[in-house]
């Protein structure tokens, strides 16, 4: 009987150390529309997160990139700039910086996944000025 007790105590200790549990990623369900609109879906993100004072706005926008509503599309689509890559979406500077772990844009921290998803899908859909 004494062996059983010892066995169970040892078992309990071993199991306690050997078990790990996976932290489940929270499942985020984004209500992303089928067709992303630059005006309806992307501009509000730029207005709220990017073109605030001192950042991508004004006469000396950060990184030379003005994301104010009147300029954003033209600036993002400037030939050779790389901000938008409709061939390999993840090569787009706009998306890569929003999705960056170490140097996210905006610098205050990564946007929520649904906003980043909107940007990704807009680029995937050929980044239209719609």
């Amino acid at each position, binding site marked *: 009987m004494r062996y059983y007790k010892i066995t169970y105590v040892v078992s309990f200790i071993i199991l306690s150390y050997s078990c790990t549990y996976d932290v489940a990623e929270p499942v985020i369900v984004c209500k992303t529309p089928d067709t992303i609109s630059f005006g309806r879906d992307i501009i509000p993100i730029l207005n709220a997160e990017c073109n605030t004072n001192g950042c991508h706005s004004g006469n000396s926008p950060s990184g030379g990139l003005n994301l104010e509503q009147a300029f954003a599309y033209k600036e993002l689509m400037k030939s050779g*700039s790389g901000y938008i890559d409709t061939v390999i979406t*993840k090569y787009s500077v706009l998306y890569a910086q929003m999705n960056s772990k170490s140097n996210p844009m905006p610098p205050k921290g990564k946007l929520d996944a649904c906003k980043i998803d909107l940007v990704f899908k807009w680029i995937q859909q050929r980044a239209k000025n719609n």
Partner: protein
Amino acid sequence: MTTIKTKSGLIFSMMLIVLFCMSACHPKKNVEPEPDGKTNIPMGTFMFHLHTYIDDNEVDAYNIVYTTTDGRKISLSTAQLYISEIQLVKADNSIVDISKKIILKVLETETYLAGDVPVGNYKNIRFKVGLNPTTNALYPPTRSDSVILSKPEMWFGATSQPDGYVFLNVQGKIDTTFDASGAIAQMQPFSYKIGTNANYKQVIMPNKNFTVEEGQVAFGHIMIDYSKLFNGVTLNQSTNLFVTTTADNATPLAKTIVNNIPSLFIFE
């Protein structure tokens, strides 16, 4: 009889424990060697985002006159350079080589794929401006990536040999007055074609932490400020405005310009 039962029960219990413990073990992810002997390490992508600048001004196009904070007017008609021997330094000081990659940075393009690199935390970017001596001795058609080597403006002669490639080709006009007070009409042409093996120049960026995540792209955002090429150059001597041959590249003027190259590169 009781002792045998007790021992059997004990052995059975121990076997159950062993089986249970084994089932709890997870294999380590992505460390199995592949058939070709490589280790299947999770990878991400590193790219450059390279901007062309004249001091504080981003250069949007050729032949636009920009003014530096010192008041000196400069315009560019050509501004391109080769980047090679790219290395990324990880936070643990190990070095990831992307040395086979050669980039020809031109004004019109800002993003350049460097290559796939292991995921992790990095702290430094290093590269050289120019081409290594082996590549510098080749004719363009002998390499599979000859597209970027087949640029006549990046050769000293009618082809890349025997003089090799131009590593950095910067041309335009500049105000050469001592006090930077010249008018646009007075600006003088300049042409700096830097090359030769002796002028293959190492650039070590300041430390800046960045992370490469699996399947994602990390960008190195760097400004190339061509106005810094003129540091230490006496501009009001017309002979100081031209370095165009391999012989010119052996002069003290060329050495001054070459030594300015690392300062061109500034993190955005």
